[in-house]
């Protein structure tokens, strides 16, 4: 600890991320999910189980709410009381939104969840003591706690099922919080490869497991800083800005001239500045 350092770099330490204007340097990982393409098929969720060593908890534990899917598919019905849901259901893949001003980060007593330079909301399993304050403060409730020691629990990874475990991803023991990482293990490999070639990661070079599996390509993932990245183009086209809590679309909401935009972020009004943009589901008006 040095007070000199504190005083010399005062303004740097007082910089407020991301509200004040300091753009990400090389990477800002972000996602967009087209709800019009999402069919709710669960392929992403299974891919996540396979990639991230998620435990299958079984019926009894599931019934107590110990489900452990970093990516969950929510299914909503219309609420207008019609006899049949004749416009179908609405599916929404929900995972950690990697908020830029994440409510979970500030409340962790031990600093086990932090913001990375790449704009990820990281979780340090080793550091976590299991106070669960992060999940308590998460508006999306997308954090999952290891209520049991799954690696040693019967029928979670019985021999030889444990041979399927991905060695790139830690198998978490009891008492730590976990959540979607945007497949940070893949990002690390891609960044390392790119760095060794003296460049940054190209768009499409790295995919998250869910994106890779998604049969309809509803999930787009990439580097928001990269002007070539599809995700950035989508955000820009939808006029969704990262560090803003009121987008262009909201201003058009009641305008006579209906907005052509369908990008939105969930709970933007709480100002977590999530890194996941959803594109509204479209339904045909002619039938």
């Amino acid at each position, binding site marked *: 600890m040095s007070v000199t350092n504190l005083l010399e770099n005062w303004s740097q330490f007082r910089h407020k991320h991301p509200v004040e204007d300091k753009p990400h340097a090389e990477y800002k990982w972000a996602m967009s999910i087209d*709800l*019009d*393409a999402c069919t*709710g*098929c*669960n*392929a992403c969720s*299974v*891919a996540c*189980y*396979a*990639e991230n060593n998620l435990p*299958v908890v*079984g*019926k009894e534990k*599931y019934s107590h709410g110990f*489900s452990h*899917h970093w990516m*969950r598919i929510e*299914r*909503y019905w219309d*609420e207008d009381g019609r*006899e*049949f*849901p*004749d*416009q*179908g*259901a609405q*599916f*929404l893949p929900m995972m950690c939104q990697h908020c830029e001003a994440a409510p979970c980060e500030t409340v962790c007593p031990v600093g086990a969840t932090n913001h990375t330079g790449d704009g990820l909301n990281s979780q340090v399993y080793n550091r976590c003591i299991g106070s669960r304050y992060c999940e308590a403060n998460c508006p999306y409730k997308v954090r999952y706690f290891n209520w049991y020691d799954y690696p040693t629990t019967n*029928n979670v990874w*019985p021999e*030889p*099922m444990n*041979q*399927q475990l*991905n*060695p790139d991803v830690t198998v978490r023991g009891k008492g730590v919080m976990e959540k979607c990482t945007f497949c940070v293990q893949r990002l690390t490999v891609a960044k390392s490869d790119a760095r060794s070639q003296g460049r940054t990661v190209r768009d499409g070079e790295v995919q998250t*497991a869910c994106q*890779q*599996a998604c*049969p*309809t*390509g509803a999930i787009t993932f990439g580097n928001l800083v990269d002007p070539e990245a599809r995700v950035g183009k*989508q955000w820009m*086209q*939808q006029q969704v800005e990262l560090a803003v809590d009121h987008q262009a679309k909201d201003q058009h909401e009641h305008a006579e001239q209906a*907005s*052509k935009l*369908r990008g939105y972020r969930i709970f933007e009004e709480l100002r977590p500045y999530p890194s996941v943009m*959803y594109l*509204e*589901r*479209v*339904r*045909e*008006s*002619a*039938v």
Partner: protein
Amino acid sequence: MIENSFNRRDFLKVLGWGGAAVTLSGCGNTSVEDGRELVTSYSEPAEYVIPSIGVYFNSTCAQCDAGCNIMGKVREGRVLKLEGNSQSAINRGKMCGLGQAGVQAHYNPDRLREPLLRTGDKGEAISWDTALELINAKLDGVQGNQIAFLTGGISGHVNVLLKNYIDALGSAKHFAYEAVAPSVVRAANKKAYGVEMPRLRLDKAKVIVSFGADFLGAWVSPVHFAQQYAQFRKASNGGRGVLVQIESKMTLTGANADRWLAIRPGTEGILALGLINALGAGGVKVAADAAGAAKAYTPERVSTETGISVEQITKLAALLKERTPSLVIAGSAAEGYAHGSHNAAAIALLNQALGNVGKTVEFPAALPFPQIAPTVGNRYALHALNDDMAHDQVKVLFNFGANPVFTAPAGLKFKENLGKVPFKVAFAHYMDETALQADLVLPLDSALEEWGTSVPEYAAEGAQLNVHQPLMEKLYPGTRATGDILLALLKLRRAQEYKGYEDFYAYLRSALVQNKAALGGSGKDDDTFWSATLSNGLVKLPGASNAARKTSATTLVFPAPAAQDGAYPLRLIPAVTANMRDGRHANQPWLQESPDPLTTIVWDSWVEIHPKTAARLGIVEGDIVEVASKSGTLKAQAYLFPGIHPDAISIPLGYGHQAMGRYAKDIGANAFHIMDAVFDSETGELAMHETRVKISPTGQRVVIVKDEGSAGGKQMGKKIAVRVSSEKVDLSEEV
């Protein structure tokens, strides 16, 4: 991806020591134990194994018959994850949840590990040699036509060997059985278009009208269709496509429709004819016979019979007229009746009336090698086998992985009839219900351990031959590949012919290499061709085009909507879900724990009831209800579900195993076992939707284990999943 330019067998040898040390502890001698090979230390791996770097090998998904091409990620000799092969025209690098769970079929802790011979109620472990000799002995003196082979859909070189073996035994019978295959639609398609599986171009259609085809969930080739669907939803071909789903129970596809119409069960064909009639009235040129068949089906009559409003029919007809090309699909909900063939034919007729044939209904290429073509499974086969067994016509039954004891409707009394077969051999991965009845159980390699080829029934582009190759060394020395077993059996019959093939791998390699010219490898030397084939994981085949045929409408007969059966007032719709299908993968925990997309229920069966019906019967969510048909009863939890016709209830198939290991046994109830044995009038296929049931609460109540919270599917006024009307957005401007 690493080019597959090394010796495949060395690779496996290394993997064997690195990945599956089980080999050492297992019984039976390996070549190493016999001293023929030396142990290679893993600290000095072969150059293509880079510790901590994943290596990908291409193969084919065996979880369903769609034949998606996959890449297995292999690390230190273990296969970790299955990903899509982007070279594939079928799945283009994508995967469904079912396919990805394939690793859990491979690593399943309940796999069979050694041949078992029944002695009394117990299985006794025996050696493979004993087992094969026993089979050979049992076959002696049995007439060829008293030997039956029960398989699922089967294709490729295993199919060739099977045919040869059947031949060697003197015209034994082959029954290809699939519990949930679209077999009536196949027959109707054959009539209407000249092919069983025309190529559906969802991506080209501007309107899709699907009569209960769950093409995004569990129908034919869902991953392929899902990709076409994504294109269909984009503006790339001039406007976002409109999906109208017509079915009595909402499927995953129905949940994604722009308009989901709850039709009275069984009246799909009537609506199709009604639409033809309305189109004709709206000025669309309809062929005379079709117009004639449809003439009687005025919107008013159709509305009364189907329960769909006149306004809706008119709107739909107008949409079909306005936006072309369209595509009409007949799915399993339309075919599941005694008049299912007629429903399917009427729907095909609608396609023709709309002029979709040749535009969105295309004709697949014919396969240049008919001997490896798929023998598709259907439900008639089971019926036929059952009859044979009932009449003591079967003395020896070989069952390759089918599980009819679980999937046969109770009405067939299949298990009872199976008991009459003196010698039953089951080739199985797990001790499932049918294997439990067998006299000899032979453990199979997992799909990720064996060599093989397959040809998908639904070809996305041209024709293609899929390559199956091991993604890692066998976990258990006591299992064998289907191909190897057939080859061994053949050697016992036709030793001369097959003595050149050490194993199935050798057979397969030589079969492909000999035909390399036809398989696009002309000019390459054998090794290069073979390596390239394995590296690609598939071979694209040129094929001749098929011609279209026109269907006749004159024979269509529809029963008047049946009067309510007082004793059994509701119709049972057995749901084929994307995860469970017919239940053969129920022991893969990822699938059990993946919530059903529509109900979000996990680890159990449920009974979907429309809230209106439930209110009438005094049933609330979580009530354990007894569902009784003429053939049987089951108990399951009730789930109030708005997406179902009030005259029907739905129970998912695939649950209710009484065997198959820790993840499947005693999970839910088996809906197959309450199905009545009613058959399609033309094809003789089992009509899946013809069961009528009554339902009564038992007084027990449980908390349903599901993912949705106490708010159910409500957003409670929060802006979470937002929907917008199509006129308010312009997708063509989007990235």
